[in-house]
């Protein structure tokens, strides 16, 4: 199934190798073919928006990359060489950080403790709170993240601040690709702006970002490239610049492949050209 509207692939920074690429990836859950022949490329300093309707396979792609659901077929390439990812740890070791929708922050711990959870800095076996706090402050400063204090429990932060902390947390391990699963789903206007600013800063730092979103406004605000999934297949990859939202939405909904478009395609031209 090819999409007549799909533009040729032209990433924002086409000068380099993709840091992460999926080549013909397929995934099957029992009788359900969740992904078939999915292609995806992420370059350093590129924000790729992964969009699609519910059940299009966005989450499956993310979980495949993150190593939660290993792929059945096809190849995953990291910096040009083929890699296999069987466990979440494999993906983390490569340099892929995933921020899931349900933030996974411990509410009772403060911001510093959450940022370093599972990889605390220690001296002589004891927590080096000073070093962690300093590093946390530096990290938040470079990302222009404003929170009341790094020493308050995450519970007292707003939704946007929590999302921003969750993203900052993924950066502690110095990843090259960050996957954001619906980072603005539950946020207000102001907080969404905050998160989108952060996404731009990640790009400025040369990270590859895969952004999953339902919100076309968000996507058009920050994405360089939009990869559309429909029913587990690629349904076009568009450069954000020069592509209208209507085009993307048409690809998402499959409007290019319904009765109306078929009729429209049929009348002026020959049949069978879908």
């Amino acid at each position, binding site marked *: 199934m090819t999409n007549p509207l799909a533009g040729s692939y032209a990433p924002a920074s086409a000068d380099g190798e993709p840091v992460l690429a999926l080549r013909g990836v397929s995934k099957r859950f029992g009788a359900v073919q969740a992904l078939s022949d999915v292609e995806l490329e992420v370059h350093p*300093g590129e924000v790729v928006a992964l969009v699609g309707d519910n059940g299009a396979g966005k989450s499956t792609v993310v979980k495949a990359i993150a190593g939660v659901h290993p792929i059945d077929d096809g190849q995953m390439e990291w910096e040009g060489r083929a890699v296999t990812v069987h466990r*979440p*740890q494999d993906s983390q070791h490569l340099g892929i950080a995933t921020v*899931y929708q*349900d*933030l*996974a*922050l*411990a*509410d*009772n*711990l403060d911001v510093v*403790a*959450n940022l*370093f*959870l*599972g*990889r*605390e*800095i*220690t001296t002589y*076996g*004891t*927590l080096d709170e*000073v*070093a962690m*706090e*300093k*590093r946390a*402050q*530096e*990290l938040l*400063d*470079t*990302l*222009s993240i*404003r929170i*009341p*204090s790094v*020493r*308050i*429990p995450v*519970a*007292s*932060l*707003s939704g946007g601040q929590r999302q921003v902390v969750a993203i900052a947390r993924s*950066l*502690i*391990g*110095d990843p090259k690709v960050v996957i954001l699963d619906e980072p603005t789903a539950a946020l207000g206007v*102001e907080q969404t*702006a*905050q998160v989108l*600013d952060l996404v731009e*800063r990640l790009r*400025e*730092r*040369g990270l590859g970002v895969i952004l999953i979103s339902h919100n076309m406004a968000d996507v058009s605000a920050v994405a360089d490239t939009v990869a559309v999934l429909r029913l587990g297949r690629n349904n076009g990859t568009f450069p954000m610049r020069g592509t209208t939202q209507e085009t993307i939405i048409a690809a998402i909904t499959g409007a290019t492949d319904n009765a109306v478009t078929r009729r429209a395609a049929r009348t002026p031209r020959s049949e069978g050209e879908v």
Partner: protein
Amino acid sequence: MSTPPTPPSGSPDPSGPLGEFNPLEPPPGIDPTPGAAVAPPVDPRLLVRQEGLRGYLDEFKRKVRGGELGSLPVVIGLIVIWLIFSLKNSQYFTAANAEFIAYYMVGLGMLATGLVFVLLLGEIDLSVGSVSGLAAAIYAVLSVTHHWNAWLAVVITLLSGMVIGGLQGWIFAKIGVPAFVVTLAGFLAWQGVMLWLLGSTGTINLEPKALNALFSGNSFFLGGQIFGAYLLAIIATVGFGASLFLQQRRRKAAGVPSRPTGELIARTVLLAIPVFLVAWILNKATGVPNNLVIFLALLVICDFVLRRTTYGRKVFSVGGNIEASRRAGISVPMVRISVYAISGTFAALGGLAIAATTNAAGQAGADPNNLMMAIAAAVIGGTSLFGGRGRVWSALLGIMVIESINAGLFMLGLTLDIQYMITGGVLLAAVIVDSLSRRTQKSSGRA
């Protein structure tokens, strides 16, 4: 992860777009007030503390309103309890009674300390009372009946407690049986094992040897000498003050916010007053009981483990959000099993301390009230039943409340029925305070 995380700020490519990026510049569309980069708008939630007394007062008010009550309710409660009983009985507010409370609270306090770990996970251990009774029985059988070396018997006893706790933790963590049920089964089963061990006689008298000698009622720090108590008070105060000032110096050197020197002095003095007062009072009686010294030393160690080590951080994070802990690479089952093992060890130690007060291991060792009192103590002291919030010091504060009430009621000649009703009421009050403060924390966005 073996490679230490490098601060991302240190690794920008100079030729990259980050060169043009000014972190101080307010990002467009994020700040409603232009020019706010110089003087950010004061968000009422920002924890900017004003200088001086006013600032502390405001912070205190904010904390109380936000439901972060800490040890405040229990300290007030303790004073109220002491006042009421002192008015009722002139013998209550005496050095001898303080000594009595200080000595008899240790055994249950140790059970409560182990329970604090379990409560931090948001779980419960109903077996500690039975395990403490069983531990006393094991020790008695080994050291008295079989004439083993007393210290060896102590070690075996503590190991048994650890294994029992670890086993319960394993069933909970690996098989997935709710902790409540596992430990309820343990509550019955370990009591049965204890009765079986004690046999038909039912009671085994202990000899004042090894740990049992240190836990006995006539064992005092440095033989009860006057300077012994003050030595402990000095160690506590100096240690506390030194750690505060050391921390301040390190934070200053690293350029992160630190507390002002005045506050450090105030905190140290605030600790020194009750510590020296207690030393003075206990000196007026017979000195500091050795079991109390051991208890306090263990509390200091546990506090250190919980707040200053990765292990403690894991305990808090599992208590706060299991999924977050799992994704951070923390082995949740290992944390759970180890916490139950700690609880079991403290239960065994508490059992030895309780047995030492009567110099006998008997069927009363697994008194279900011990369990209830220990849970009550941990909760009354301010450790949340909902997990993730609390300190080991709540075991000390809580058990002081419980024993103060018990001693008072005993002194007034009130029978057991009244005693249970009042302790039950206090426990309920503590849980209500816990639940309410959690609700306030939720509504003010802090839980």
